[in-house]
């Protein structure tokens, strides 16, 4: 919009977009066939459940919190949905129940965190153990899902022209990103989250509903994690309690690579989408290459987190100095 938007506040977002373009360009240069709309559409489909979870995580991080339970909630939802459907429950009812449980679970953690001033990372860590254990309590094995609706959704393809198609999962991801964008940037609730993450004390003095916003954001994140779990069942047509192990780290990484400040108060939902694309591109490039091993993924992601954290450190310090 204006030059000031490109520097300062949105610099991390611009940096993320630049990194994505560069990464995608370099990858396309080295690997023939990479530069196509199909690949981008596949990036969305293949990383849909990570992306959906990351959008919820972004909101939590905006508020200065963190939620380590999302991977476990995905695993729980996955096996919960499959188990219910295995007993003849209709998929829609199973989804509703799963979303309800996820939301209530997140809301409970949020309440503990806010009401008793407990550290978010500790409570959500406990939440992670709890959700993972509950999932395995239902079933430690993978359960296949057979249902006409699942078959239909698996074959669903939204033609985007040319060879591009968007799967149901990719579509859900884009819808969640759009919803997340509206919530974060165009609602009072979203703006309150930024204010809390920026300075909780000031937010209180400004008369903002700090407590309810904090509880709500964990509930919303529980909802998106459960949704990600449902999308995971669509992706593999099965439910598995071991899904999503370590996914909370990937989600946090994606958020940080997307330019959001991990201590809260700064960032953009679209950055998280870009973060998912960067994450997906690295993964796809490693797969395309065949020579590089998959563990490079973690190392590159760790290095990217380091770069972004140092970049943000520099920006925040710069702003602080000017303010002083």
């Amino acid at each position, binding site marked *: *919009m*204006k030059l*000031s*938007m490109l520097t*300062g*506040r949105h610099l991390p977002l611009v940096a993320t977009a630049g990194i994505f373009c560069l990464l995608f360009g370099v990858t396309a240069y080295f690997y023939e066939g990479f530069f196509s709309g199909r690949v981008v559409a596949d990036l969305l489909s293949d990383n849909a459940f990570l992306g959906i979870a990351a959008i919820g995580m972004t909101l939590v991080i905006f508020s200065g919190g963190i939620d380590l339970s999302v991977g476990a909630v995905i695993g729980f939802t996955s096996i919960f949905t499959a188990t219910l459907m295995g007993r003849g429950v209709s998929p829609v009812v199973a989804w509703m129940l799963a979303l309800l449980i996820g939301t209530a679970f997140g809301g409970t953690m949020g309440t503990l965190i806010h009401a008793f001033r407990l550290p978010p990372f500790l409570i959500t860590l406990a939440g992670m153990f709890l959700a993972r254990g509950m999932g395995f309590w239902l079933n430690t094995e993978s359960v296949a899902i057979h249902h006409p609706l699942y078959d239909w959704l698996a074959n669903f393809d939204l033609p985007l022209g040319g060879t591009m198609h968007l799967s149901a999962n990719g579509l859900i991801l884009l819808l969640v990103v759009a919803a997340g964008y*509206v919530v974060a940037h*165009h*609602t*009072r*609730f979203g*703006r*309150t989250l*930024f*204010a809390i*993450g*920026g*300075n909780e*004390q*000031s*937010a209180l*003095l*400004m*008369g*903002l509903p700090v407590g309810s916003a904090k509880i709500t954001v964990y509930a919303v994140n529980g909802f998106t994690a459960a949704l990600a779990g449902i999308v995971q069942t669509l992706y593999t047509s099965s439910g598995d309690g071991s899904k999503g192990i370590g996914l909370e780290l990937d989600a946090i990484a994606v958020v940080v690579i997307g330019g959001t*400040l991990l201590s809260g*108060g*700064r960032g953009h939902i679209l950055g998280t989408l870009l973060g998912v694309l960067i994450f997906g591109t690295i993964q796809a490039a490693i797969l395309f290459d065949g020579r590089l091993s998959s563990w490079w993924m973690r190392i590159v992601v760790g290095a990217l987190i380091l770069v972004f954290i140092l970049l943000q450190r520099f920006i925040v310090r710069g*702003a*602080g100095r*000017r*303010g*002083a």
Partner: protein
Amino acid sequence: MTDQPLLQLRGITKRFLGVTALNGVDFSVRSGEIHALLGENGAGKSTLIKVLTGVHSPDAGQITLAGNSIQPSSPKDAEQAGISTVYQEVNLIPALSIAENIALGRQPGKFGFVNWRAIRRHAREALARLEVECDVDAELGSLSVALQQMVAIARALDLRAKLLVLDEPTASLDEKEVAELFKVMRRLRSDGLGIVFVTHFLDQVYAVSDRITVLRNGELVGEFATAQLPRLALVGKMLGREVKDEAGRSAAEAGAADQAASAAPLLETRGLARRGAIQPMNLSLRRGEVTGLAGLLGSGRTETARLLFGIDAPDAGEILLGGKRVEFDSPRDAVRLGLAFSSEDRKTEGIMPNLSVRENLIFALQAKRGAWKTLSRAEQEKLCAHYIAALRIKTPDAETPIKNLSGGNQQKVLLARWLATQPELIILDEPTRGIDIGAKAEIEQLIGKLRGEGLAVLLISSEIEEIVRNCSRVLVLRERRYAGEVPAAELTPARLMSVMAGTHEQA
């Protein structure tokens, strides 16, 4: 101006745990005036402001605003009644845009959505009213403190306030920025707003205010028209003594001062300065001498001490210790070279609350010796026993957590902490603040003893009497500048006050 005051406080009394912070104070502000609220530490200014803005509710008294009796129970409540406050610490969100900071909590829009266009428009209007021009999309944190202050004022005024409370808005502004702020204040005054202006800078009081209310020790000293109250009289009223008072200083002290005057300085500074803290200043401190550092609140006393002790890095100038140039990167360096600094902020910069009296007491000595040269438990206990007896520290035993002690005894433990390091120079920043009279007398006695033992002492205090009683000579700061020295021979409260007030040149 109308005769009917806009704001009228009558008989406001507020007690905290049996301590009376405000005692039957009256205060009134008219529409279209700038009213300065003045007083030194503990005068009750901030309590009065908090009563006004709904943070505290008074134990007795009435508040009327524009003829209606009000009882604000929260800052939001007060804002709705028409009283808006801008604090010294800008209570906004630096990472968000200017426009959003003005709108937060009352964004226009339906169903929980926000209308960005309306937010920007409101922000532009609110800033235009103050004649401030800036890009409302810019991040608040990218602005100078002065502009952030303007945004805070814009936010406050957006509520169609009748009364604007500015609580030390100028504390971190430079001259030009202050001038800008005053322009805005005058403009708002001509719009008919009542403004309460809290500041420590007397020049500013005379530059902008119409009337002055002075508080001292929770009581109203009086209300004056600014034009009719000479500066020196004002300082006298704030400090609670008439200007003609003479000090009774003992001959022994003057003698000590004479002796010390011949000795070479222990510590000297040349052009020591830091932007926003203190203008370049030279000072010299000698062994066996208690040097006072006086000035009104906000004059740069603590800032100077922080530079001397390596807490903040100077922008310019140098420090000489025993004639040799030294540089302190941290308090650690200063402590190793024999300096000690007892901070005015006991709670956040002094005590380690959950650690025991013993651990707090031996801490600086142990830190100076390093981790390996550990003081044995017996040595520690000996030190504790010695200082607990010598300073008459009242504590059940040395193993009690220091947070359980009273303020005065905590202060004594902190003094003992420094004395145990056997420093050559000790900087005492408000060593007697908030402690009872008995402990205060003991601490002053101790200061005299330290002088006798050949220490150099730099005593910072807002109490004129304390400075005059204890110091051989006094360096005076005014508005972050060195304002002059009052030598032993001339050291009287009246002389000191006139230098502090900046009227001695004319006098």
